[in-house]
């Protein structure tokens, strides 16, 4: 798979706004960003309201996801072009999610909403409506989703990539520094995890570094090419960003995203935790 199959530039996006069978989707946690102006024709997915189960801590099941995409007017054979705020964290999460449910053609706009805004490109406040479809999600592909017991079993045998900031990894802080720090979890990281912050894979404007720089980064940090990989962060969206880098850009085999991440792991009774940074 070529980089251009999964990642498109803001220029490409601007030139393809009206391309047939192509749906632009903005994914944010702060849905007010979309309402204040979005890429022309883009529909909105709210990370919490649309993509999470309203009761259980989990994301939508196959039927719920089918219903959601049908209502949004997205068809199985559409090219879905994702972008969003927070350096594409939630768009990358949606990318992983669309892949988990078998959507064939998904792309991410490099740099997301930030690059688009920094470039001074046009945003629209027009209400976007699309005719409903009959979307059929595939059964979830669990080869790209890790669960908590797999993470514990992976200690000492797989690459565990903790993509949080160094201060979260060491336990100095518990959440990204734009959030209050009073949280229920223990501090620290999964023993033996290597800390490769998601931010080290991206440029300041939110675009991804080139493949050579990314390969060099993982090699330098001790990523073992011969091992399977599980990426995690705090709630699974930054680790989706790294899953995208490892699986989709660099083509590594057997890479899973642990979307339960630290909010789950750091609350498990008896799970091993390490504070030391090696």
């Amino acid at each position, binding site marked *: 798979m070529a980089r251009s199959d999964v990642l498109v530039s803001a220029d490409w996006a601007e030139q393809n706004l009206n391309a047939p069978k192509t749906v632009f989707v903005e994914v944010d946690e702060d849905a007010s960003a979309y309402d204040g102006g979005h890429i022309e024709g883009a529909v909105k997915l709210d990370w919490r309201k649309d993509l999470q189960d309203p009761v259980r801590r989990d994301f939508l099941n196959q039927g719920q996801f089918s219903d959601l995409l049908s209502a949004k007017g997205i068809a199985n054979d559409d090219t879905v072009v994702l972008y969003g705020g*927070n350096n594409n964290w939630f768009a990358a999460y949606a990318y992983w999610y669309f892949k988990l449910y078998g959507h064939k053609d998904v792309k991410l706009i490099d740099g997301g909403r930030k690059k688009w805004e920094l470039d001074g490109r046009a945003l629209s406040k027009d209400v976007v409506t699309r005719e409903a479809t009959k979307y059929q999600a595939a059964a979830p592909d669990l080869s790209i989703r890790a669960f908590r017991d797999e993470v514990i079993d992976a200690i000492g045998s797989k690459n565990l990539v903790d993509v949080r900031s160094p*201060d979260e990894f060491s336990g100095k802080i518990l959440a*990204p520094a*734009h*959030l*209050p*720090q009073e949280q229920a979890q223990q501090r620290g990281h999964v023993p033996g995890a290597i800390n490769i912050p998601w931010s080290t894979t991206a440029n*300041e404007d939110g675009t991804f570094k080139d493949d050579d720089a990314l390969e060099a980064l993982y090699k330098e940090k001790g990523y073992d090419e011969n091992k399977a990989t599980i990426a995690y962060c705090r*709630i699974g969206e930054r680790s989706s960003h790294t899953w995208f880098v490892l699986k989709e850009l660099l083509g590594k085999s057997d890479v899973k995203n642990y979307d339960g991440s630290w909010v789950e792991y750091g609350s498990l009774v008896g799970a091993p935790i390490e504070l030391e940074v090696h």
Partner: protein
Amino acid sequence: MCGAPVQGQTIPAGVDVEKETVITGRVLGADGEPVGGAFVRLLDGTGEFTAEVVASGTGDFRFFAAPGTWTLRALSASGNGQAEISPEGAGVHSANVTVGA
């Protein structure tokens, strides 16, 4: 949640500033006027990225950090800029960032 609370000078209800090390400030243009909507990045003492928020329409931003040395770096369509801040303990600490100077 992982998105930032609404940016502004008012600390959200439920946040204990006796415990939190709050870094707040405003993005200003070369003319000293507030610049809204800039991307403000908090970098740690080694220059590593820690967090990013989008400043409010009035240029306000806010982080919940820890004592230490931090760099505030703002990116906007009209230019970039940065400032340093070194809070020594909990409480509200302020620094403005001028862009495009």
